[in-house]
């Protein structure tokens, strides 16, 4: 008998040569980026020795600059929820550009079912429906939001799976449709004043808890369930998956539905946190969500990536954004730098793949 643990046919397996998980690279990149900002903060002449990471002014009980960390993780959480879904879509070999506008449309719709009747004793000035829609139990708006997400995702997925439209085109169309829905819903007017129960969903650090909770759930699903395995299989070799008897079309519909439901859930949390919904909500979110996944090592050619990677990618994204603000980089330069970083991440993915090809 051979090494019964991993190998067959008497071949020796060298534990030391086991491939280094990509997530570790991203983790080190994260630390490196933090160090770079810390060093920049110490050396740039106009920074008068504030620290990026540490509490240099003794404002907090811990050694870390808690305020900054909290802002980073809060900023990242809502788009992070979207990127959990985008990760699955990309692993399955697709792309979803419609998630940002879906956030806008879902927020408008959901908020209309979450309004309270009286604001400071006066009738709600932003009421969308009649009195029947006031003070509904929070499960109703949440359900409406998830159902809307599932509906949009089912259309995306069906178009891609059954009519074989490229995912880029199908979801680009849905991008415009959703932005249109968001604007048509109230002809551009914001929808505000949710019930207390609804407002509690996204208050304080709640977005972070949702993000972490959902990340754990989907990490488990991708790694340990049939759904996860087949998502990787389809993204890795769609023909092989089909020839092996996997119902590729039905699976794709499911993947896009889950992704859109996560985007709709992000809309719920965002509108709850802001206590209002606006048709312009979620601008650029689809791109940022894709960026988080790609920075986190999810391969745009499908088949590779992980939820842990995406969570780390989201942290990198948040740290970079916050770091730019910290070193007082102008907002428009920030956009440019962010774009460069996204391109860099994709180039890195390509290089990694070509190296893997050379090895085999």
């Amino acid at each position, binding site marked *: 008998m051979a090494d019964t643990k991993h190998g067959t046919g008497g071949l020796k397996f060298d534990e030391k040569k086991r491939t280094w998980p990509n997530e570790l690279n991203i983790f080190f990149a994260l630390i490196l980026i933090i160090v770079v900002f810390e060093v920049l903060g110490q050396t740039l002449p106009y920074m008068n020795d504030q620290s990026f990471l540490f509490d240099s002014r003794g404002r907090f009980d811990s050694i870390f600059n808690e305020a900054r960390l909290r802002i980073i993780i809060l900023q990242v959480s809502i788009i992070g929820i979207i990127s959990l879904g985008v990760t699955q879509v990309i692993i399955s070999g697709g792309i979803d550009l419609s998630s940002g506008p879906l956030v806008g449309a879902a927020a408008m719709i959901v908020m209309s079912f979450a309004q309270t009747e009286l604001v400071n004793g006066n009738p709600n000035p932003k009421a969308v429906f009649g009195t029947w829609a006031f003070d509904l139990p929070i499960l109703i708006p949440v359900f409406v939001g998830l159902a809307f997400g599932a509906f949009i995702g089912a259309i995306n997925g069906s178009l891609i799976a059954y009519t074989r439209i490229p995912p880029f085109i199908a979801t680009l169309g849905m991008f415009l449709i959703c932005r249109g829905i968001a604007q048509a819903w109230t002809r551009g007017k914001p929808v505000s004043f949710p019930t207390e129960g609804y407002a509690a969903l996204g208050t304080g650090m709640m977005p972070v808890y949702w993000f972490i909770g959902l990340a754990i759930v989907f990490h488990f699903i991708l790694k340990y*369930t049939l759904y996860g395995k087949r998502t990787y*299989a389809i993204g890795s070799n769609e023909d092989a998956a089909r020839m092996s008897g996997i119902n590729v079309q039905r699976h794709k519909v499911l993947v896009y539905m889950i992704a859109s439901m996560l985007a709709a859930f992000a809309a719920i949390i965002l509108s709850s946190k802001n206590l209002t919904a606006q048709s312009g909500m979620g601008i650029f979110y689809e791109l940022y969500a894709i960026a988080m996944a790609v920075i986190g090592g999810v391969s745009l050619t499908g088949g590779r990536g992980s939820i842990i990677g995406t969570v780390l990618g989201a942290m990198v994204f948040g740290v970079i954004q916050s770091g730019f603000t910290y070193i007082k980089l102008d907002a428009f330069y920030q956009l440019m730098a962010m774009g460069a970083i996204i391109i860099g991440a994709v180039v890195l993915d390509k290089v990694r793949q070509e190296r893997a090809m050379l090895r085999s």
Partner: protein
Amino acid sequence: MSDIILETKGLTKHYGGVHALTDADFVLRKGEHVAIMGDNGAGKSTFVRQITGVEQRTSGTITFDGKDVHFAGPIDAREAGIETVFQTLALADDLDVPDNLFLGREITRFNWLGPFRLLDYKAMREATIAGLERTAVKIPNINNTIQNMSGGQRQCVAIARTATFASKLTIMDEPTAALGVQETAQVENIVRTLKEAGEPLILISHNMRQVMDLVDRIVVFRRGRIVANLKKEETDGQDIVAYITGAKTGAEYEGAA
């Protein structure tokens, strides 16, 4: 009960104007190993794709295990008991060996969870190791992704896949193309194991020695038609080559090609 496991009558496939397969009458008996030979583009893979439901035939009938069959897809064929190694290996590069072996038929627990049912990694890994040991396939680390494996190892995984699951018919489309001497010997061993187990096999190959070594009967395809049906004892390599190149055509197929 007849001893015929597979029979096709007038099996025909046109791709637009391309007549890739015309009027193929083919019979395979239980326990029999048959080779299909023919030049590139002769229609061998096309024939396999019609039988396994990967494509839908233009006309003709297929009888498998006593029943007229119309497989809607490869999963139907597999459920009916046909295991296939396709010429384009149906492997997922980013998955490891057990994942690939069990692609599309994963062992799962808590099946009431539907698509979210749990994978039984342990059972799949153990079955994989057992299957690979039985077929003497050498893989240093089955938890590596297929991508990092040599062409021969990949091929062996694809073949071990069919040999791991008991079936009524195994089809291999050029299983040893691009294999080294040792790997070829391994694949041939797998074929012999099947023969001993009494499992019928259709082997597509360009390798004359291998064909003469392994099978009972040779069917030759030329330009989409069957042109010869030869018992191994009654033929030799030169004879077969004559049929492949068109220098000769079997008596019963005169006027066909």
